């Protein structure tokens, strides 16, 4: 791949998905585009990029962005966010909401392990929300991931990462060489296609936002912009959960760190601050 082609793809990814692709990611680009070229019946990556550049076909551009998004995820990833939910977030919100619905948004949900983990956590701990109904909305930019997430179908490898065997036995059924999560849990999660960098997004207001290991692909300005937009989609008293190595420091004043809880941030009540 020549540098002009690399630059073209890098710009496309930045514009469409906010993904910053530096020069050292040439190998990543090539390893992900080769299967797409094969699928399109094209002899090489160079031909694939040539076709994208000359025809500007929306379908192909969308697929190129799709294969370049990272979909790494697993059940109960990092564990602590789910402890935060159990020990702090749900009890606090259930008390504050007084019977009103609690809304959770998983931004960048990939193949669905995160929202399904939250659904399992709630199912295992029915007293956690004191009977307050919880709505889980999960979004991703990738059609490929969303399709799999909606089906709730996981490989043997995926169900062995982070998922205790008791939960596999309780919530999954075997389907050929895959495992499918129960219909009941599938119904608890609504999956929607959504691009975090789209300035016009409106998904409603949420009390809890999980946006873990997503901002790391954006540059500083885009991180700030997305955090600001997430803040406008949250109810007062809401919580934001970022990845273990992520923070809002220097990026956003809309959130403040929750004491002793790594990766967890509280929405700042701006009206109070202004007074």
């Amino acid at each position, binding site marked *: 791949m020549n540098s002009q082609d690399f630059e073209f793809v890098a710009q496309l990814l930045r514009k469409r998905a906010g993904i910053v692709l530096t020069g050292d990611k040439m190998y990543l680009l090539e390893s992900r585009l080769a299967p797409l070229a094969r699928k399109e019946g094209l002899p090489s990556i160079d031909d694939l990029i040539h076709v994208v550049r000359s025809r500007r076909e929306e379908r192909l551009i969308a697929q190129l962005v799709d294969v370049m998004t990272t979909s790494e995820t*697993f059940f109960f990833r990092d564990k602590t966010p789910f402890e935060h939910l159990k020990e702090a977030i749900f009890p606090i919100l259930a008390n504050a909401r007084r019977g009103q619905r609690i809304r959770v948004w998983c931004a960048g949900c990939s193949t669905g392990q995160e929202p399904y983990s939250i659904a399992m956590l709630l199912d295992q701990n029915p007293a956690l929300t004191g009977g307050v109904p919880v709505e889980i909305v999960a979004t991703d930019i990738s059609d490929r991931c969303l399709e799999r997430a909606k089906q709730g179908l996981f490989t*043997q*490898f995926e169900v*062995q*990462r*982070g998922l*205790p*065997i*008791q939960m*596999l*036995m309780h919530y999954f*059924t*075997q389907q050929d060489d895959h495992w499918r999560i129960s219909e009941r849990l599938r119904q608890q999660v609504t999956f929607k296609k959504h691009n975090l960098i789209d300035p016009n997004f409106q998904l409603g207001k949420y009390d809890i936002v999980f946006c873990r290991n997503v901002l790391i692909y954006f540059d500083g300005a885009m991180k700030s912009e997305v955090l600001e937009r997430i803040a406008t989609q949250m109810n007062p008293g809401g919580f934001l959960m970022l990845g273990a190595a992520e923070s809002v420091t220097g990026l956003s004043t809309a959130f403040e760190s929750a004491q002793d809880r790594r990766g967890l941030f509280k929405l700042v009540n701006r009206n109070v601050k202004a007074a």
Partner: protein
Amino acid sequence: MKRCLIVDDSRVVRKVARRIVEDLRFDAEEAADGQQALDTCRKQMPDAVLLDWNMPVMNGIDFLRALRREPGGDRPVVVFCTTENDMSHIAEAMRSGANEYIMKPFDSEIIESKFSEVGLV
């Protein structure tokens, strides 16, 4: 250092598993069938057992039931590691006193994930 007994009739599988558990800072011991494993446990109970199902002489599930009847045999954390990947086998293993269950093929990530589920790492 914690001790992990690897029970599998395949020398190759034992070798791969040994490397993984040693990376997780376990002292590894090996047994090629359930009877050998039981003899090892009678001398000294390990902290963890990574256990295959189908083996000659004594299979994994018979070993597990015998182990749980031994004095101090309730202590080792037993993680099955087998090609038997259907729900009835999993349920039988758990009923017989297994703590976790790995469906082969496995890799270091799966072993680490399962060992952390049962508090071994």
